[in-house]
Structure formats: C-alpha cells, structure tokens
C-alpha cells in the first residue's frame, strides 16, 4: 500500500462574512481558482500529474453550485485532463476532501491530488441550499433536529460549562490568534488575494481582535435563548432527547461561537513516488482518518467518537498525540473535547481557531490541517490530529506525522 504525503498547504485570509468583508466582492470560483493557481505557481506544478481536485463546499447553490470544483479547475488554467469533485460533509468538508484524496492515493488510485475547499458565506448564505434534515417532519420528529447553537448550549449544559468557561475559552482564542499573527506563524501559508490586475484585495485575517476580554464578551446577549425557550421552542425538542435536563442554559453568543467568514484553502497531496518524480519534498505523512455519526440532536460531539475510533484503530493513546486542532465551532465543543480526553489546553488550537479567525464552512477542515502542519514544523512536534464536529451529528478526524 502507498502512503499519502502533504507536499504543500495554503489558505486565503479569512475575511468577515458580511457585505463589508474584504472578500465579499470576490466570486467563489475565483477564490477557489486563486488557491489552485497559487499551488501551481509556487511549486511550479505540472498539473497533468493531478488525478483530481476534491473541493469541500457546504452551500452548493448559485455560484457555489454546479460542481464548483471543476469550474475552479477550468478557471485556474489547469490542464483540461484534471477533473473536479465538489463534496459536502458540512463543516468537515475540507478535511474530508483531504481524507478522500489520501485514501485514494493509499489505495493506488492516483498519484497526486489537490484537496481543499471554499465558502463564501457573505455571498452564499448558510442554509440557502435548504436541508431536509432541518425541515422535513418525516425526519425531524424522530431525529429531534435543533439548530447548532442549541446543540452547543446542550453540550455546555450537559457537561457543566458556565458562561464564564465559554467566554474564557473565546478570549484565549483571540489572544492566541493575535500572538500567531504577531509572530508571523501564518506567513508561509496565507496567500494574499489580488484582483485581476494584480492589485491586492486582502492579505490578513480580518475577524480576530487584539482587545477581546471577559468584560467585552460579557455584554453580549445569548444568541439562542429566544429560539430555544420561546418561538419555536427548540428546548422542548432537545429535552425529548435529554430528559434529565431541567432546562437548557443558553450561554453561547456571537463572541464564543465561530465567526462567519469568507475563505478558501488547498493542500497538495501525493504519493511518495510523486515526490520522487517531481523533486517536491514531503512535509507530513497522512497516517489515518476516521469519520463517524453521532447523536444528531447534541450534534457537535462527533470529534470524540471520531478520535476514539482513530486511536483505537491505530492502537494509540491520546497522550501519544502532540498537538491538536479541534475546530472551534463553539467554545463548548472544544471544552468538551478537552474534558472527554483530559487534554490540557496548551496542546490544542495553539494559534487560535474559528472563534477568533472565523469558520468558512467548506474550507475550514483543510485550513486547520494546514495550521496544524505549520505549527508541528515550527515547534517540532511529531504527531498532530485535526478534528471537526459536523452538522447532523457527525465527526471527522485526521492524524498526520511530520516527515
């Protein structure tokens, strides 16, 4: 069996996912193509070697519909022989793209892939592709669908995280992101985005704040209290699944939840022979990946069974992993991961995460794997694990080893 290696990893800056965000004027296909062009240019890549471009993208309608992956390949000027595959595993789409590519390489199906993703949340609003899982009564009555924010509040209630716990975590995310930018930790991976004339549009993440404190977060109102307790009353649905809870404490808000942003990322993955053929130097080996389904109501605890399955199948212990990226969808998701595995915070999300930097749904998976790799190289850590919680109750996890 072949091994799969990461040869390069890049991402765009993450810009506010609003009309005043820097990337709002950029199309999804251009930003995707920019990623492909950047990988090609900085590696002097012969694109005929690429077996497929696998592109994570959640809201596949409008400009993100119609197999955006292939559209991006065409716009990027890749050889016509390179196909494209758009995939959706919600928030883990970007990581799933990598896992699909790596596993195909391991199985001998293709030598090199580009995997990554994009989400222009300011242009194609989250949820605008519809979702039977949220709305079809034939399904929702049994599965007890609640929105993600309610799910995050269930986690915090069930596992005992207070508003202060959640806010403290969020403050730390901003602190770490600020520190990472100050020390240039993202400089090798973040690609400035230019217009068609070469004029720079954005070169730095927009969302994180250098002045976030418990006090500034303290004034924010809970985001999901009203839909939980009043109309339409999602807490009643939550309690159908969690009947031992008297009430759901609503403590998540805009400041301790991931930010809505625009962004894209891409990773060049290949076999060992691809490296030999091209002379590219592998940076990390993709050791293992897992994906798993979990209870759709609490929804966001998937990283735990995904990680457990991964550890079990590799015969490892949690202590063996040096560094973690656990997507900061909500504070409670990461706090629960730390609690479940008894992992200290100094091994997790050391350069901040989606709370400070934003969560461009389809791109985040490959972004955090790239961030993990950069940090492993910088701090010389051998084994790293990236994991994300996924809507509808799923989890994905990927383990990499520095070469």
């Amino acid at each position: 069996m072949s091994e799969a290696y990461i040869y390069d990893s890049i991402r765009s800056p993450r810009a506010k996912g609003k009309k005043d965000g820097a990337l709002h004027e950029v199309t999804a296909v251009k930003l995707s193509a920019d990623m492909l062009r950047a990988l090609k240019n900085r590696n002097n890549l012969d694109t005929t070697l690429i077996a497929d471009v696998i592109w994570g993208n959640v809201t596949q309608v409008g400009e993100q519909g119609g197999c955006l992956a292939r559209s991006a390949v065409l716009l990027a000027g890749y050889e016509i022989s390179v196909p494209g595959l758009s995939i959706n595993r919600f928030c883990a789409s970007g990581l799933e793209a990598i896992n699909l590519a790596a596993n195909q390489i391991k199985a001998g199906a293709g030598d090199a892939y580009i995997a990554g993703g994009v989400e222009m949340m300011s242009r194609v609003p989250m949820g605008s592709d519809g979702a039977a899982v949220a709305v079809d009564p034939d399904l929702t009555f049994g599965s007890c669908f609640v929105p993600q924010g309610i799910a995050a509040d269930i986690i915090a209630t069930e596992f005992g995280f207070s508003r202060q716990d959640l806010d403290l975590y969020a403050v730390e995310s901003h602190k770490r992101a600020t520190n990472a930018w100050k020390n240039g930790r993202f400089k090798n991976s973040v690609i400035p985005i230019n217009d068609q004339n070469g004029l720079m549009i954005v070169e730095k993440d927009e969302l994180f704040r250098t002045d976030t404190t418990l006090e500034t977060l303290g004034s924010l109102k809970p985001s999901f209290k009203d839909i939980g307790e009043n109309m339409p009353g999602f807490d009643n649905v939550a309690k159908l699944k969690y009947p031992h809870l008297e009430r759901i404490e609503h403590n998540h808000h805009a400041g301790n939840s991931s930010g809505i942003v625009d962004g894209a990322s891409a990773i060049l993955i290949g076999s060992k022979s691809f490296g030999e053929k091209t002379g590219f130097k592998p940076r990390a080996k993709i050791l293992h990946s897992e994906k798993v389904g979990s209870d759709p109501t609490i929804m966001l605890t998937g990283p735990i069974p995904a990680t457990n399955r991964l550890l079990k199948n590799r015969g490892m212990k949690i202590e063996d992993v040096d560094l973690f990226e656990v997507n900061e969808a909500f504070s409670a998701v990461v706090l629960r991961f730390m609690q479940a595995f008894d992992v200290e915070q100094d091994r997790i999300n050391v350069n901040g995460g989606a709370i400070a930097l934003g969560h461009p749904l389809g791109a985040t998976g490959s972004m955090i794997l790239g961030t993990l790799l950069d940090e492993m190289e910088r701090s010389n850590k051998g084994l790293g694990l990236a994991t994300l919680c996924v809507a509808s109750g799923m989890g994905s996890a990927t383990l990499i080893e520095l070469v």
Partner: protein
Amino acid sequence: MTDFKYSIDDDRIASIIWDSEGKSINTLTLESSVELNNAIERALKEDNLKGIIIGSNKKDFSAGMDLIVLQSMMKESKGNFSGLAFKTIMEIHRTLRKLELAGRDKKSKKRSVPVVWACPGLSAGIGTEIGLACHYRIVSDDPRVKVGLPETLVGLFPFGGGTTRLMRSLGALGSSQILLEGKMFSASAAKSVGLVDEVVEAKNLINAAKEWIFNASEEDTYKPWDKANFKVPGGAPYQPSGFLTFVGASAMVNGRTQGLYPAHRALMSAAYEGLLVPFEDALRIEARWAVKLLTIPSTYNMIRSLFVNKSALEKGRARPKDIAKQNVKFLGIIGAGMMGSGIAYVSAMAGINVVLIDASKSTAEAGKGKVGAILQEGVKRRKTTPEEMKSVLARINATDDYNELKDADLIIEAVFENGQLKADVTKKVTKYISKTTIIASNTSTIPISDLAKASINEKNFVGIHFFSPVHKMQLLEIIKGEKTGDRAVSKALDFAKQIRKTPIVVNDSRYFYANRCIIPYINEGVRMVGTGVKAALIENGARQLGMPVGPLQLIDETSIDLANQISTATRNALGKKYIPDESDDVLKYMVENGRLGRKVNAGFYNYDENGNRLNLWPDIASAWPNHPNQPDVDTVKNRLALIQALEAIRAFEENVLMDIRDGDVGAILGWGCIPWAGGPFGWLDLMGTEKILELCKQYSNIYGQRFIAPRLVHDLHKRQQKFYDLVAQ
C-alpha cells in the same frame, strides 16, 4: 333516498342541500359521499348552468365525517385496509376537486360555474372541507355557527383536502390554529382567520349565495392554486421566506406534543410534502399520510375514547333508562369557594337559576364575584358578550339565607373537603328543602355512603365530583353511594348534560376512581425523588408519557402537607403492618422545610411572589442526591403509566369502575391521562398483556408490591385477550 337533495331553479342555479336521513345532524358516510359526487355530476351536466349552491336543510351544515363508520372500517377490514382507505379518500378528493373545478376544461375552454357554500350553523371536519372546495363561503350570523377542523383533537388530521387547501390559501402560520389546534371559530372569527368570506343574516343566507353567483366573475371561480404564478402565502418550505417558518413549525409541534401524536406528524408531513408538488399531487400525498395515520393502533384508540365513547357518555349511555328526564331549573349551591363559584358559573351559563349560599352574605357575594371574573375574561376574549354576562350574573342569587333554597330542585354541597363539615351542612340543608329534592356532594375523596348518612333520604343523595377549574374541566365523576337511587343518578346525569360536561358514573369507595389513580401517580413521582432519580427526569418523563403535568408539579398544586397528613394517618392506622415507603421521608422533609406547595409559593418547585412557577427546588438534590445510575426515560414513563393503569384495573376489578370505556374517557378528561393511547386501558392494550406482566414482575421485584399484576391481567393473558375485548366494541 339520498342525503343530498338536488334541485335547480328558474335562474339555472343548482342547489345541493345536505339532509342526512334519520339524523339530527349531517355526517358524511361512505354512501353519502357517493351521493354528493352524483349530485355534483348531475349539476355539471345541466344546460346553461349558472352556479351551484352547497347548503343544508338542517340547523347545522355538518358535524363532519361519521367517525363510527370510520372506526368500524378500521376495526373490521383486515389485510387490505390501506388499499381500501386510500381508494376511499381519493374518491372524496376527486369529488371535491370536481366541485372546485366546476366544469372548467382547458381544451374546450369551458369556464367554471361559480360554486358557493352556504353554511347555516356548525360545520366541522369534512363539512368544512366541502366548504373549502367551494369558490366562496358564506355563513349565517346565527350564534350556533362554529366553523373549523377539529380533527387533531380526536387523533386525526383534515384529510378531505382541508390540509392541502388551507396550507395553500393561508400558509403555514395562517393555518396553524385551524389545522394544528383544531379550533372552532364563530362566524366573525371564521371570517377574520380566512376560513369564510362573508357573514350574512341567517334569513338571507340563500339569497346572499345567489347574489354572489349572479355577480361572480370568471376570476372568482379560480382558486389561487389554479392560477398562474401561484405563490404559497408566507413562502414554501424551500423558499427563503418560508424555510425558517417550516423548520420552526416542525420543531414547535414536535416539542409541544412531545412527539406523541401521530396525527400531528402526519399533518405536518402532508403539509410540507404537499407544498413541494402541484396541487393534485398534494392531495394524493395528503391521502397517503391519512392512510398511514389510520393504520396506527393509537389512532384507533384515540377515536374510540375521545369521540365514540365520549359522545356515547354525553348522550347518556350511563343513564338509567326508565327514569323520566329531570332537567335542573333551580340549583342550590352551598359553599361559594372556588368550586362552588365554578359550579355556579357553568350552571348559570346553561340557563339554570342558581342560589349561591355561604356562611355570610359577603363570602357568597365574593363567590359571585369570581363568576363575574370568569365572565369578564370571556368578554375580554370575545367569547362572551356583555349582555350575556349581565344575564348570567342575574341568574345567580348570592346569599347566606338557606330559606332561598326552598324552590331548588337540586342541591350541590361544595364546602371544604371535611367530612364533619359536609355532614353538618347536609343536615342543615335538609331542614329547608323538600324530602324529594336530590342532594349532591361535590367531593373528590370522601365516601358518598358516609356523607349520605347525614341526609334524610340516602336514596336521594349522590356524589358529583367536579374537577378544578370547573369551567375548564370537561369531566364529572358521578358517584353512587350504597343507597343512592336511580332517580338521583339520573338527575345528576341530566344536570351534566345541561352544563355540557361529560359524565362517568362510578361506585363508591375512598377516592372513587379519579383520585384513586391520581394519588399513586403523584406518590410514584415522590418515591422516585426518595430513591435519587433526578427531579427533572421525573417531570420530563411524565410529560413524555403524555401527562399534562408532572407528579411533582401536581403535588405542588394539590398541597404537600395534605399528602403528608394522609401518609402519616395511614402509617398510624396500619401500625406494624405498614410497609415503609420511600415517599414518606420526602414528604416529611418538604413539610418540615415549609415546602407545602404552590399555596405558599414553595414546594418541589420555586415560585416567584406572584405564584409563577420557576425552577425545581435545587435542595431536593442535596437532600436526596441523584443516584449515579439514573433510570432511562422509558423506565420512568412506564412506571408512571403502569402505576395509574394498575390502579384503574383494580378499580374495575372492585366494580368501582363499572366499564373500562368510562375509565379511559374519565382518565383523559379528568386528569389528562395518556390521551394519545386513548387512556390507561388503551395504553395497556397497546402494550399487550405479555409486556405488562413482564413489567409488573420486574417492577414489583425492584420497586415494591404495588406493581404486582392484578388477577385480571393474568386472566386476559391466558385467554389471549385485550381489555377492550371485555366490552362489546
């Protein structure tokens, strides 16, 4: 012979007038739906037809589908029920669609004739659905007009096109109180919610219908969904405007119904899926979900208890047949507290003159004041007119003078629940009334045979257990003492009919039927607390079982010190024979800590100073720490259901409860006991004797002897029978 009378007048307007043979109110049967179809076809073949009027020869338009016919269809048809039911429902859809298109033909460019619905009185269910298929709906301004689709209240949903048409005409939000809540609307309310188009004077109903036909334009004969560019009001599920509404609707209904009611699920699915396809496909989808619903056993149980057996009791099934009708004309009520004033309200509303007596004139007046407050609330919510309020209050004479009782033909003693006090009052009353006057005691716990001893003639003494609040609770539990005569029982039943309550008749014993089952339910909840089950799990488990109120909330309402007194008295009475119970210490602890219930704003729950319930009292978990192994919610649900059901079985074995049908109707209406299953006996049958015996064995080993299966369950199991095999239906 036909239920739909057909005629055509000189103006070439065809009238299809509903007049069910031999019935006081029109209901649709399989045969009459074919007759309706034939009448529509006949009209549409007329030369030079100008329009069609759909009306009724009776005071009302229709009570809906004949559910007894539906029930027997569900019971009798075995293998191919689904196929037959689907075919039948689709026939009704085709009939009403024919009416709606009214001869329109695209190819020959034939226009529709205008079709108008003229409704003189009540219209429910399929009656209203026939109206919804018409182009225009006119109702009379008669106060008896009530229009709506109450199907969900008996475990069904509108599947005669009502769901599909309302979702398309009013949207998800606009139709929710009609479809989901099953509300019935007065004429003016029906107009304002969009169920009808026009309200006219009763005598002008048919003229107004003709007038509309004369003036109708071609546009008027098109339903919105038959026009180009039709848009769903408020948005369809996958339109940006509608998406969140539908996400929310699904969650709201699921949460509020605890996911227990398949009718609501089927309705929601028919509504959602129907809006994703063209109209005729939507009708077919509606029919498919209807068939699915009709094949679920709990649906049958709900119709049985909430319609068939409830109606039978209201029509007097339990009444002795050979006693002449004895409507109450003049009612004497002793005790103007909450119960007495509630009884005064419902009686005066039914046109009965009332004398409301209390120890002093001022307390009696205060009782009348409570009636005024209920009426005022009705006026505020436009359920009562100010004139009605005035005339109702005029029927109530509040006084402390027992001489005013002399013309009363029924006395209801409704003083505080204390045997001695009740006996004293009864003795006093007998001095002022004739020997033949019936005396009823409103009591929820004290044996009627004991109370009867204070009266002159025990034959004329009966128990009437009202539930609180009287003006909202539908059930009357009528209790026959050992010597209570048929005339007294009949009087109580005739009174029940007058005040539009549903009566069950039970034999005397401590706590009768209702409280005999409610008390163990409460105690089981308290016991769970005493064994470290999380209070929230107990309360949520009860709700997930379909109980309106958890046992801890309920004991807060009924008072914790009372429960403690009962428990202490029982302990003292039994002495060494007493089996210690986990609930004893809990009750004692609560009382010692001043947690007496809602009346002191402190019980298992915390309350604010206005008596609004807040959170569960956190100290419970300190005094009885949560056990590390919590039961699953199904165990909590089964324990709470079984403890009530077993007591209901024992009441039946002891002939306190004489008919399990009454047991189910009474349990649902009296204390909201498992309505989705059609009541406790319905629940037992859904579970099956095998499962029940297994649970009894398991629970009696773990939790105590109270879960030992009664003889009857073993007998039924041996005979491979269900509880409802014991009654002839």
